[in-house]
């Protein structure tokens, strides 16, 4: 297949970027999207140009490191997929593909398609944990947790932290990411104890990181590779309201 690419090139956060055109002649439909990018980069290197920087690591949809806006959509045209799981068979011979970094005030661009998502780490730092030290944890079966609660907690905990929710949100809200952790821990008896304090701290950090308001458009759930439910956001709002009232 012949593919025309328009890729965002930007040297660093301080210099303006622009879309640059590239053409690839021998794209194979079975290639993954990132393998197509590898092919482009090899071409660029051999021609003496700087290859396109993009984030990726596990290439099986779980590490959350990859992420691009592909034809104007987070992780590309297929819902509930990471960029690395997208394959070129989703495109046609002669297609033009626009590739841009995930954008948002909270995600400053480092170079080309790489963005700084450390804000997510700082949100977790603010309280996205259970304060238990290593060593002498009580017997695991000491507190039974119903099958449904455990599964529901898992559903929230499955977030891979890729940032597609922020990238696709018209407000660049990090509500889905933050709420998934708030809900995961609030749903478990071990985490519930700190849940009031946790939600206040995490939301405060989320706001400081320059993410916008959640206006419940639910686009994040559609693009989320792990299909994290927007009901986590409701749960966070509930926990937050309770905390504010009982504080």
């Amino acid at each position, binding site marked *: 297949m012949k593919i025309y690419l328009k890729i965002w090139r930007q040297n660093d956060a301080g210099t303006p970027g622009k879309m640059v055109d590239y053409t690839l002649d021998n794209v194979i439909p079975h290639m993954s999207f990132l393998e197509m990018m590898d092919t482009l980069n090899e071409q660029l290197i051999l021609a003496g140009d700087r290859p396109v920087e993009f984030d990726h690591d596990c290439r099986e949809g779980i590490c959350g490191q990859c992420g691009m806006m592909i034809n104007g959509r987070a992780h590309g045209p297929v819902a509930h997929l990471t960029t690395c799981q997208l394959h070129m068979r989703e495109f046609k011979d002669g297609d033009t593909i626009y590739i841009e970094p995930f954008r948002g005030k909270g995600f400053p661009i480092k170079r080309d398609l790489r963005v700084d998502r450390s804000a997510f780490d700082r949100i977790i730092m603010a309280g996205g944990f259970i304060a*238990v030290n290593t060593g002498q944890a009580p017997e695991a079966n000491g507190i039974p947790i*119903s099958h449904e609660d455990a599964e529901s907690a898992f559903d929230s905990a499955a977030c891979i932290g890729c940032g597609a929710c922020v990238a696709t949100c018209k407000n660049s809200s990090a509500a889905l990411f933050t709420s998934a952790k708030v809900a995961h821990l609030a749903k478990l008896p071990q985490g519930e104890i700190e849940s009031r304090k946790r939600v206040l701290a995490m939301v405060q950090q989320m706001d400081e990181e320059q993410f916008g308001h959640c206006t419940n458009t639910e686009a994040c759930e559609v693009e989320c590779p792990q299909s994290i439910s927007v009901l986590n956001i409701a749960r966070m709002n509930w926990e937050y309201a309770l905390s504010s009232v009982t504080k």
Partner: protein
Amino acid sequence: MELNAKIPPGPLKDKWTYYKDHAKLVNPANRKKLDVIVVGTGLAGSSIASSLAEMGYHVTSFCFQDSARRAHSVAAQGGVNAAKNYKNDGDSTYRMFYDTIKGGDFRSREANVYRLAECSAQLIDQAVAQGVPFGREYGGYLNNRSFGGVQVSRTFYARGQTGQQLLLGAYQSLMRQVAAKTVSLFTRHEMLDVVLVDGKARGVIVRNLDTGEIERHTAHAVILASGGFGKIYYLSTLAMGCNASAIWRAHKKGAFMACPSWTQVHPTSLPQSGSYQSKLTLMSESLRNDGRIWVPLKPNESRKPNDIPEEERDYYLERRYPAFGNLAPRDISSRAAKERIDAGFGVGPQQNAVYLDFSKAIKEQGKPKIKEKYGNLFDMYHKITATDAYAEPMMISPAAHFSMGGLWVDYELMTTIPGLFALGEANFADHGANRLGANSLLQACVDGYFVAPYTVSNYLSGEIKEPRLEIDRQEFVDAEVAVRAHLSKLLSINGSKTADQYHKTLGKLLYDYCGLSRSKAGLLKAIGEIRELRKDFYENLKVSGDEDEMNGELEKAGRVSDYLEVAELMCQDALTREESCGAHFREEYQTPEGEALRNDEQFCFVSAWQYQGEDKEEILIPEPLTFENVELAVRSYK
């Protein structure tokens, strides 16, 4: 030189207790004066960093990913073993110990393995306390499943994302300490060298991957938890960034490498579909519980799988291993697949795969039941291959997966460099010549949460009087100069081949000659070709960009330059081990039926390798293995 594994005295089951009772402690006031560097933030790295920080040490932690949460432990699917005996099916610490020793084909240390089994129960407690949502029964108690060639149910799981959930638990603990300022975390930093002062590990040289800046960091001990290097085969189940650089550079500074050639090849990965392919996706081994593996009886079969009648199919695992059938251990299943593929019975466009067929299970249990058990895996298969595995068999093939080999460590997980520790997959310790499924998450966690906190403290108790070092000391300057020289060298070649091209060639070479089966002739040939390739690499490599900026190509080239050296040692290691054991199968040493033939008389030892300098052959120093609690038996799955 004699290797001392420092195994504590006493009966097997009391050794760890004895160690803990006698390990030296550090007074809380003194802990504040002691710094520890941890390289890697996977399960082992995150867990030891947070554990030490909680104790009061100051920890500096590095990872090359953009967040600690993305380390490759995240990708482990199946589960984590623990001898809790919740199912009341006869499990015990001893039984788990025995299964692991036997699974490793009697090439691991008894005391280490027993400790692993002993600490396993505690890990589940720890993880649950951290909020890991393990699968539970309707009554609210933890559930188990059985996994990979054992007779009890001891595998705890969080759907197919157990590694992710355990890692998030460890990562969250780590971030809690970062918030408490007891851990300084540097993401997007890659370790490029260990700095030794008076023979002890006292610091590291790292490169900030976002800016290209070279930094020096000092501490009283350095812990490497940098994971495995299966990515050396290029096509593997590992993440693109997984590498051997940290342990290899430590090796060049004096830490011994142990059994580097022992790489587990996972039998159920998706086959390569073209030369552009960058990685092989793993499909959980649990699929083998219901899937039947077969190839056509006729070579070069062109019919579609569903058109091949039952009598023209060869269910080779069931044929060769009637007792375990499709559930035979990983090394055996992988080898059997390779044997059929090499004999011309492989399927798929590249004839490099075998079928994993669910039609019988679907007929017997119904599609909904199969969907419930494996729905997410079938979905994943569909995402990648656009094929409906409910309607036709999956195609699978073996792929490099786990490094049993790594830095040699003693019972305290310390390498041969004082103050340099290696944890998790980066070390060679518990798995012997073959790792059992669901033991890797366990080992990484046990090393980090339960073992190293004691052993690192024991070491640090002797370092209390050592002051913090100035980073402008000559040792640091020299190390940095060497690191910079290497980077500049890579950039200055300006040839015509990319690092990936070399990596692919090397991977193919290793897979063919030092992969599932090895032979003297093949290994010798490989060593020659690797040397040629290495020479070519330094003549024709092309790296674009500069040293002092973000440069993904330079990172790759650095890693490949190390791989080119590791590969030769792997072949050397495989060549000198004239027996077949676990993942190491030497064609010359097999039974008439084609099964592995171990040689306990001559090779019941761990091969530890000592670096001798650039382009010099390394010296093999064996660490004899003594078995006092188990009888060396032939591993039979027939």
